[in-house]
C-alpha cells in the first residue's frame, strides 16, 4: 500500500479521531476562563482547581473503590468462567453464557435502571454494593474473552504432562495453567479497570450523591459550569490511558489480544 491518496485519507481520519483529545489537552493549560484554541498562554490553574475541588476528590475515591473491587472480582469471575466454558460441557451452559455475555448487548441504561430498581428493593441505594455489582457485570465479558483467547492458545499437553507426572489438579491449575494464561488475565484486568473507571451511563443510575463516581461528578460539573476544569481532568485521563495503552501494546501486544495480527 503505497498510494499517497490512501495514506492521506488515513491521516485525515486519524486527525478527526484524535482532534478532540488534542483540543482538550490544549484548552486545559489555557489561563483564561473562556475556552481558547490554540491556548493563549500556559497555566496549571485548572489542574490545581480540578485536583482540589472537593466533589472530584470524593468522586475519585469512590471511583477507585469501585474500580478496584469490580475489576478484581471481574478478573476472578471472568477467569474461572472462561476456564469453565473452555473445559466443561454441562446442562444450562448456554443459558449461563447468555446471561454473562448479555451485558455487552443490553443498553447500559437498561442495566443501570435494573440495578437501581433492585437496589431500592434491597435498600442498598446508599452504598457501593450495587455499583460494584453493576460494574462487575459490565466488565466481566472483557476478562472472559481475554482469558478464553489465552486458554485457546495454550498447549494443553503441559497440563496433561504435569498430571501424568503426579501433580494434583490444584498444582496443575496454580503452577501450569494460571502462569500460562497470566498475560490474558492481566490484560483483561487492565481493560476491566479502565472500563470501570470511565463507565458513566449505568453509574448515573446506581450512584447516590455520596457515592458518585468521577464520570458522574464530571457530568454534573459540565451541566453547571463552563470553565476548563473538566479539560484538566480529561487531559489527565487521556494521557494516562494513552500511556497505559502504549505500555500494554509493548508488553502484551494489543493486536494479538484483539486478534487482528497479520497472519
Amino acid at each position, binding site marked *: 500500500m503505497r498510494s499517497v491518496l490512501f495514506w492521506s485519507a*488515513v491521516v485525515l481520519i486519524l486527525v478527526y479521531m484524535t482532534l478532540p483529545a488534542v483540543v482538550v489537552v490544549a484548552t486545559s493549560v489555557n489561563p483564561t476562563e473562556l475556552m481558547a484554541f490554540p491556548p493563549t498562554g500556559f497555566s496549571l490553574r485548572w489542574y490545581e482547581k480540578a485536583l482540589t475541588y472537593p466533589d472530584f476528590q470524593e468522586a475519585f475515591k469512590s471511583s477507585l473503590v469501585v474500580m478496584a473491587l469490580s475489576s478484581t472480582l471481574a478478573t476472578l469471575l471472568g477467569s474461572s468462567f472462561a476456564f469453565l466454558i473452555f473445559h466443561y460441557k454441562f446442562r444450562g451452559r448456554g443459558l449461563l453464557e447468555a446471561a454473562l455475555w*448479555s451485558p455487552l448487548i443490553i443498553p447500559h441504561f*437498561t442495566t443501570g435502571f435494573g440495578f437501581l430498581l433492585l437496589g431500592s428493593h434491597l435498600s442498598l441505594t446508599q452504598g457501593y454494593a450495587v455499583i460494584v455489582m453493576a460494574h462487575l457485570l459490565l466488565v466481566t465479558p472483557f476478562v472472559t474473552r481475554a482469558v478464553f483467547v489465552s486458554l485457546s492458545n495454550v498447549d494443553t499437553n503441559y497440563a496433561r504432562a504435569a498430571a501424568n507426572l503426579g501433580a494434583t489438579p490444584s498444582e496443575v*491449575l496454580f503452577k501450569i495453567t494460571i502462569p500460562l494464561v497470566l498475560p490474558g488475565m492481566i490484560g483483561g484486568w487492565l481493560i476491566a479497570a479502565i472500563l470501570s473507571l470511565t463507565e458513566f451511563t449505568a453509574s448515573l443510575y446506581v450512584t447516590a450523591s455520596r457515592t458518585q463516581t468521577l464520570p458522574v461528578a*464530571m457530568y454534573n460539573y459540565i451541566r453547571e459550569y463552563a470553565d476548563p476544569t473538566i479539560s484538566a481532568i480529561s487531559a489527565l485521563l487521556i494521557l494516562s*490511558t494513552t500511556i497505559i495503552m502504549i505500555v500494554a501494546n509493548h508488553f502484551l501486544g*494489543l493486536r494479538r489480544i484483539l486478534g*487482528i495480527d497479520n497472519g
Partner: protein
Amino acid sequence: MTQQRPFFIPFLVPAVLVAVIFAAAMFNVFQYSFLEFVPGSVEVGGFTLDNFARINRPIYYWVLLDTFLLSFATAFFALVLSYPIAFAVVRAERNWVRSVLVVLAITPLFTGEIVRTYSWMLVLGTDGVINTTLKALGLIEGSIPIMYTRPGVVIALVQFAMPVMIILLATAISQVKRDCEKAAANLGATPNTVFWRVTIPLTMPGILSSFVVVFAWTMSAFSTPQLIGGGKVLMISNVVYLQGFSSFNLPFAAVLSLIALGAALGSLGLMKLATARFERKLATV
C-alpha cells in the same frame, strides 16, 4: 470434586450467583413495566397495561425514528471512515506504523464517554474550534450551529463508534487469504479491482456484523445526545432518563428500556441471519 472435573463446582457457583443477580435486576425492569404509575411518587400501584398504551403517541414515534436514523447514519459513516484505518492497521508494512495506528485507533475507546463527549463540545460549540477557525479564515460571519443539531450528534457518535468498528473490521481483514488477492493480481486485475472485487466481498461478513454492532450500540448511546443534543436531539436513552429522574415515572421508563433492549436484540438477530447467509456464500468460493 471428581477427578475428571476438578474445580467444576467452585468455578460454577460464583458465575451462577452473579448471573442470578443480573437476571433479578433485569426482571425488575420487566416487572415495573406492568406496574401502575402513581403521579408524584416513586411508589407504584398494581398491575396494568397502561404503560404500554402510553407509547402510542406521535412524540414517542418520533423519538424512536430519530434514534433509528441517527444510529443508522452513525453506523454508515463509521464504516466508511473505519475501513481504511482497519486496512492500514492490518496491512501497513512497517511494524511501528501498525503499532502507532492501533494505539491511536483504540485509545479513544478507553477514555470514557464523558471525556469524549466533553471534548466534542469544545470542538463543535458556538465558540468551539470549528467556528473560531472558520471565522478566523473569514469563511463565515456568525457562528454556524453544530451543537444541539443532529449532524453535530452524529459527528461525535461516529468518532465514538470507530474504535469498536476498527477492531471488528481489522479482525475480518486479517483473515482474508492474501493468495486470493495475489491470484487476482496475477490474472491482471488492477489494485483497485482487487480491492473492490476481492477484498471487500471477502470481508463482507465483517462489514455487515460491525455495521449492526455499531448500530445497536449507538441506539443505546446516552451522554452524547444528552450533552451535545442538549435536549433538542432526543434519543430513547434520554427519554428513559427524563421519565425516570424528572417525572419519576419509573414504570414508563421501564417500558422504554424494554423497547431499547428489544431493538438491540432484534438487530443482532438480523445480523446473525445476514452474516450466516454471506458465510454460506463465501464457503463456496
